[in-house]
């Protein structure tokens, strides 16, 4: 079974998600061969205090094999409070949306460092949807170099680049830098052309925005490396397993 480092649940303001409920998300992911993951609340992205979306999800995920990736905006004054609460309550990662919340990644350095001290990785989201379909709130492009730079400045924190495209990952590397596979669902045989360390790749479906089967069928036939990478990530993150 795959571990999904990028899955979601909830509502999406730009279109109706037919499979967005937690029950449906878990069923669809299980059908695609996903046994657990870091799940984020789509609602939380748009709430002023994201805990309003994350708190209930954290409770609902208890005992499911999925853990919460809390949404934080470092530009808001209460991020430290929420980070501490979430870590104590069992959240296992922080997901950042700099393109939606509109801050430069250097503004997330303090948050990123403190998340690492609490044993939480930080996921930097490049995009949530195809730019051509974005509506009302324009998502600013997230620089992959700046995202990699965040990892370099916070060596005690594991940083995951999420939904970056193949070409954006080219030439990036770092001891605490990882990338998920969500953005590799384009083109043919993307893993053959990937210029990013394979041992730093983590599976992500981006369901329910993207189809989980699309993420799975796109993987190379030999998938053991993903299990190995998942173990290595958790060891690097907190010296143990999820």
């Amino acid at each position, binding site marked *: 079974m795959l571990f999904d480092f990028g899955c979601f649940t909830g509502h999406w303001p730009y279109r109706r998600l037919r*499979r967005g409920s937690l029950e449906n998300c878990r069923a669809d992911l299980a*059908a*695609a061969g996903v046994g657990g993951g870091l799940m984020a609340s789509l609602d939380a992205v748009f709430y002023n205090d994201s805990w309003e979306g994350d708190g209930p999800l954290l409770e609902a995920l208890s005992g499911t094999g999925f853990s919460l990736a809390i949404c934080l905006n470092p530009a808001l004054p209460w991020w430290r409070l929420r980070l501490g609460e979430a870590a104590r309550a069992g959240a296992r990662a922080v997901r950042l949306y700099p393109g939606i919340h509109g801050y430069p990644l250097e503004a997330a350095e303090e948050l990123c460092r403190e998340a690492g001290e609490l044993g939480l990785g930080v996921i930097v989201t490049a995009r949530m949807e195809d730019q051509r379909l974005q509506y009302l709130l324009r998502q600013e492009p997230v620089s992959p170099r700046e995202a990699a730079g965040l990892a370099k400045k916070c060596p005690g924190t594991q940083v995951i680049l999420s939904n970056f495209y193949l070409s954006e990952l080219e030439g990036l590397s770092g001891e605490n830098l990882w990338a998920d596979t969500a953005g590799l*669902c384009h083109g043919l045989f993307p893993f053959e052309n990937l210029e990013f360390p394979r041992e730093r790749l983590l599976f992500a479906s981006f369901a329910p925005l993207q189809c989980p*089967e699309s993420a799975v069928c796109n993987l190379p036939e030999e998938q053991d490396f993903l299990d190995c990478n998942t173990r290595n990530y958790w060891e690097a993150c907190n010296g143990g397993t999820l």
Partner: protein
Amino acid sequence: MNEPIFDAHAHIWLGRAAQDAALLRRAAEKYGIQKIYISCLGSHTPDPAEIEECNRQAARLLSGPLFGGYVTVAPEQPGALEVLRQGVEEQGFSGMKIWVSCLCDEPCCDRLYDYCGAWGLPVLVHTFAKTVGQLPGESTAVHLRRTALRHPETKFLMAHLGGNCYHGLPMIQNLPNVWVDFSGSNCRFDDLPYALELLGKDRIVFGTDMPGSFAMSYGQVLALPQEERRKILWENAQALFDGRDGNAL
């Protein structure tokens, strides 16, 4: 998956046609694709020489059983009908492709649709409804609706579910001469179920937009019940092309 696969929407690109063809052949072998319909594309507003070269590149691939082809046409060009005629009657194409050089409902297109209607050839129309970067000649489902109503005897294939299925599909829902494909990297998790709900299972064909995209479309069909999968992966495209590709199973 045991069903045969008919990919009704793929490309080779000018300047890298041989590499693209090799990629498509590899994909066919890996995923068990029996038929791939290609068109060759280059710039957004090609001149006649570029169109000629595109079609020459694509025609080279049509001799074997794997590839079928759409003639690439820039309808606004005076010689477009001759390009289409030559492509169908001399080069072995069995469909026509309109991309973004002009809107699909412009009057200059009518003579081409008449020809395709008379020959029973499907017309693949790129459609998209972008929130940013819509090209001046880029058709939406609204343009295609007008076109299909004006040419009820011609079969149209609306690409990419109209680019945004919630906008595009209602436009052509009640038009029996319009099929749709869910090709492209814009294809989202809910899109195919929505298309099935709105159109039923007979007017949806499988397309990928290879080599630019594959998994986004392919993954969607894996979860379908077998009957719907069979129809979408093969039977509907056979009906659209009237089995003229000679590869009926």
